[in-house]
């Protein structure tokens, strides 16, 4: 199918461009883009729930934090290696998502939003409450405890920019591939059916609760993969990443880039990151500009950038 090839070519092209980009970037932007890639993985996870399934969460930072602490604490206390730490972070996020989903998915719409906010805040406050163990309020640094990866006998430390960038790109690519595969699969079709008309979908033979639970599991997995990756690559673990602000960010990134588009979260994350970066060089009230950007977005591009591009020019864009 030419449509399928076109979609594959576009996404592989974006990944290839990102791979090449690292050789052209000056050091400052090199680290920024690595950071953006990991955060975009988080936004992609968020979009699986909001964009494909139609569930808006305001507690997604709990999954990012579950990945971050699930990976960071074993490294800090037991000197666990990076691959195992990453797997533990991922498992924490998926576990939390499923437990949360079994309770919270009894609600939908605004109630789900509130319940997710409550759970998110509960995790944030728990991290602060058990400060002796989590070191939540100060945070902690991993670099001294984390053994470098090895490739053919050569140590690859996470402080090296090349390693940082390429691991970040690998995490992003995995998230992107998962989201694209989901979007184009039979499962993705059902999730979109639930988003568009849940009662109809139930009467067409689909147990919507189970499908929403799967979507939440995937969303939590991607968010926690990003959280674990962020902890390992940027060497810092702290409770601020579990705060409400970190639940709002992926919502903003996704809205900006295009809800329900596969590449939208990357675009939104990159633009918002550089907007904040540029503006905060001039003034400390950068949130004012973020707010203004969002108002403009809602007024003129309610579907986000790629959502608008899709409805005007490229209907095949997934």
């Amino acid at each position, binding site marked *: 199918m030419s449509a399928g090839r076109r979609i594959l070519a576009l996404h592989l092209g974006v990944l290839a461009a990102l791979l090449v980009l690292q050789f052209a970037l000056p050091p400052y932007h090199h680290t920024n883009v690595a950071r953006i890639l990991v955060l975009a993985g988080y936004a992609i996870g968020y979009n699986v729930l909001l964009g494909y399934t139609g569930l808006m969460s305001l507690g997604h930072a709990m999954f990012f934090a579950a990945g971050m602490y699930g990976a960071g604490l074993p490294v800090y206390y037991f000197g666990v290696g990076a691959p195992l730490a990453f797997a533990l972070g991922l498992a924490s996020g998926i576990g939390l998502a499923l437990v949360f989903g079994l309770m919270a998915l009894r609600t939908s719409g605004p109630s789900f939003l509130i319940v997710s906010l409550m759970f998110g805040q509960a995790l944030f406050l728990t991290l602060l409450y058990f400060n002796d163990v989590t070191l939540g309020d100060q945070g902690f640094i991993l670099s001294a405890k984390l053994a470098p990866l090895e490739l053919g006998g050569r140590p690859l430390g996470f402080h090296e920019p090349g390693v940082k960038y390429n691991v970040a790109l690998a995490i992003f690519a995995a998230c992107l591939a998962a989201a694209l595969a989901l979007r184009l*699969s039979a499962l993705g079709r059902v999730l979109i*059916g639930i988003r*568009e008309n849940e009662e109809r979908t*139930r009467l*067409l033979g*689909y147990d919507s609760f*189970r499908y929403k639970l799967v979507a939440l599991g995937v969303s939590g997995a991607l968010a926690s993969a990003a959280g674990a990756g962020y902890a390992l690559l940027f060497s810092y673990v702290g409770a601020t990443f579990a705060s409400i602000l970190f639940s709002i960010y992926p919502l903003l990134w996704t809205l900006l880039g295009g809800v329900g588009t596969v590449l939208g979260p990357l675009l939104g994350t990159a633009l918002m990151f550089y907007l904040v970066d540029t503006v905060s060089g001039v003034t400390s009230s950068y949130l004012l500009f973020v707010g203004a950007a969002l108002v403009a977005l809602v007024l003129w591009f309610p579907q986000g950038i790629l959502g608008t591009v899709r409805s005007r020019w490229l209907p095949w864009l997934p």
Partner: protein
Amino acid sequence: MAAVAPLLATQALSKHFGGLAAVREVSLEIQPGEIRAIIGPNGAGKTTLVGMICGRHVPSSGRIIYRGSEITALRPWQRLRLGIAYTFQVTSIYKGLTCYENVALPAQRALMRGFVSRLVPGETAVAQRVRAALDAVGLADLAGQRADELAYGHQRLLELAMALATGPQLLILDEPTQGLAEGEIAALCALLRRVAEQATVLLIEHNMQVVLALARRVTVMDAGEILAEGTPAEIERDPAVQKAYLGR
């Protein structure tokens, strides 16, 4: 007639919404292969009754038996998998999706077994099934069109195509001809006769010409109860029916 085991039977089925009894102790039997019409004035409880059969509403009391087993407690998606398909009175389609995608959801479900499915159905098989369902209702040329851009009559037909794509054994249609033009109604009747060769059809309908043309038996409801039941000719002659329809 009673010798054949009914495909569907309701036993003293009731539904109360707060203090309002929408359906009161309705016992109904539908034989395999028949086209049954339910008629009655607005508010008679017809939609609520079929809503309980397909699983939209939980009955307040009573039982529903389908192919010899009780399904009263089954959830809507489980009933669909047993072959009970429902089309809404107020069109309920995926307005933001194309006709193809609207029908692909039920088509995919029919090709799946169990939850996510042990084998994800191939897109070619789904496409074939979608094509067949859209062909049956005459919408094949509009497969790529967004559902909310369709004319109202076409939206009704799309809804029917979605039900057909599930491969129903019992097809429940809630006022399928509402809002259709004369010619479209005739075409729909022809289509339903073809469908009835493979499935049992339960039809709520106000248009008496459609009822007379299609139904072998007619059930008349009024105020949540069955008022009369019989062949179309018997129903037309029934004094109680005339009273309910012509004013009391």
